[in-house]
């Protein structure tokens, strides 16, 4: 995309496919340096973290006394949310409202995992079903817009539902599976743009959509970051950052106790995301989200750089089944396979080609980082 010569970080596996990446004199990238400087000093998954967990759990329980729920947890069926559910219910004794947003793309494994976990923990699952006709139209609009961030219709629906539920049930604590251990390197903004920039969402739907989104759940950043956060006092709790948490240990615990099944790759609980992150992004844009995932694991010492490089030599999709996937995606979106292939070949666009409020999101991210709420920022 740029004329920049190819370069790969000497410490992790991020490279110039992230066009904003910078390297120091040792060839170490700014993701790594940022991790050492901003994240590591504040990361205490030890005794200090345990004490903070105990204090917060106590506060959450008190806030929920006499209520049906004391917190809320969104369940995708993926590793992080599954493990967090186990943790907060089994180990902490919390009573979260557990909800799942069905955007129409659940993989069979995801459905099974959710069912096993919720069943064995004896919880009620609140399923929010997105109107498929609207979802399909919205996703198609993103394909037609030519941008990389095709995942936003799924992503945004999830975030919006979370906040609507929290608001409706007067829940003060949002349990968030976001974690440093497996996600400390963030996807560059250019790859996956902010999912809550409603200016962008609406512009793309206005230009390429064919219908009004009447029931699709929207949430504006003003609603969830300002109104809920500061006027309603809703707080986000990320327990996975306060305890020793590794991918392997989480998989082991979940499969042993719940018969949970692992996915071949992070985010592959959705069939759409599997196609999108495994095939579409790397082959159309040269963005391989495994670079980000592996780099996170390298920085948190769960993977060696050599193993990551070796894994990256293989495509993230299965060449033997990719034609089936194309057909599956096209038929679900109700378009001919050829049309889907045309979108794959069309000129590449970015979030900058459509209305956006990037400045506002960047500013917000910088403020949060400055006051120490967030470590790494998206850039």
């Amino acid at each position: 995309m740029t004329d920049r010569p190819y370069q790969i970080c000497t410490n992790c596996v991020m490279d110039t496919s992230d066009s904003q990446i910078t390297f120091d004199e040792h060839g170490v990238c700014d993701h790594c340096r940022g991790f050492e400087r901003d994240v590591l000093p504040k990361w205490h998954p030890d005794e200090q973290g345990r004490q903070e967990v105990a204090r917060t759990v106590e506060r959450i329980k008190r806030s929920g006394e006499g209520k049906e729920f004391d917190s809320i947890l969104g369940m995708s069926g993926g590793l992080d949310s599954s493990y967090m559910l186990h943790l907060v219910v089994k180990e902490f004794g919390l009573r979260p409202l557990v909800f799942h947003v069905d955007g129409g793309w659940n993989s069979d494994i995801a459905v099974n995992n959710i069912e096993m976990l919720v069943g064995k923990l004896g919880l009620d699952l609140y399923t929010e079903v997105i109107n498929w006709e609207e979802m399909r139209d919205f996703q198609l609009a993103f394909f037609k817009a030519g941008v990389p961030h095709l995942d936003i219709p799924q992503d945004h629906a999830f975030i919006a539902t979370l906040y609507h539920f929290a608001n409706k049930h007067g829940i003060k604590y949002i349990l968030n599976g976001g974690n440093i251990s497996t996600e400390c390197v963030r996807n560059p903004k250019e790859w996956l743009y902010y999912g809550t920039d409603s200016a962008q969402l609406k512009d793309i739907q206005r230009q390429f959509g064919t219908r009004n989104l009447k029931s699709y759940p929207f949430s504006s950043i003003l609603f969830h970051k300002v109104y809920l956060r500061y006027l309603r006092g809703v707080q986000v709790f990320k327990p996975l950052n306060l305890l020793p948490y590794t991918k392997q240990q989480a998989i082991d615990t979940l499969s042993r106790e719940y018969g949970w099944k692992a996915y071949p790759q992070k985010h592959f609980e959705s069939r759409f995301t599997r196609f999108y992150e495994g095939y579409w992004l790397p082959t159309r844009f040269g963005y391989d989200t495994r670079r980000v995932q592996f780099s996170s694991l390298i920085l948190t010492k769960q993977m060696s750089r050599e193993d990551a490089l070796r894994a990256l030599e293989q495509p993230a999709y299965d060449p033997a089944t990719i034609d089936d996937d194309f057909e599956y995606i096209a038929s679900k979106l109700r378009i001919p396979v050829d049309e889907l292939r045309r979108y794959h070949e069309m000129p590449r666009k970015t979030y900058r080609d459509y209305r956006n409020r990037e400045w506002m999101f960047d500013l917000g991210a910088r403020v949060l980082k400055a006051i120490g709420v967030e470590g790494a920022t998206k850039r």
Partner: protein
Amino acid sequence: MIGIIDYGSGNVAAIMNVLRRKRIAHFLSGKPSELAEARSYILPGVGAFDPTMEALTRSGIVAALNEQVLEKRKNVLGICVGMHLLAEGSDEGMAPGLGWIRGRVRRIETARLDRPKLPHMGWNSVSPSGQSPLFRGIDADRGFYFLHSYYFAAADQADVAARVEYGEAMPCAVERGNVFGVQFHPEKSHSNGTRLFENFAELG
């Protein structure tokens, strides 16, 4: 007025939201005396068969409903586990069902699925089998939202109002006289679901 049967289980808020939006008169109650006032009933259900049946029996609702549905011939619509309760029994539990429609609730046979996955969760199209008033104006291809591992194996095929294909064709709606049951969740099925509730309300 539709009486939504409240037995302390199931997420009835979603059902009430749809009815409210469509201005269909309804109330929620678990008291037999109040329920007697209703013109028809919705029997919701999320959860397992036995505890649900037990809760209904204990609260005296079963006795009250038997009178309203079997003797006074008031319409009733069972949803998901609420539909299962209409059967004579279930593989999921030991308790006898209401027995208003002959048949038994069985687990979906995974050996015959090409995608051996339970639960059956997500949108699926349906095939209405006759002239069921519930399915008037329904887009059968678009279908409904499902979330289940058990289905109603009706003894009499004439009682099957619609089928769904998941590995094999199985009943997803039953109907006998004034007793209706649907396996899917109309309250989560957007326009089709709304229409189904309207159709049920119009039956009186």
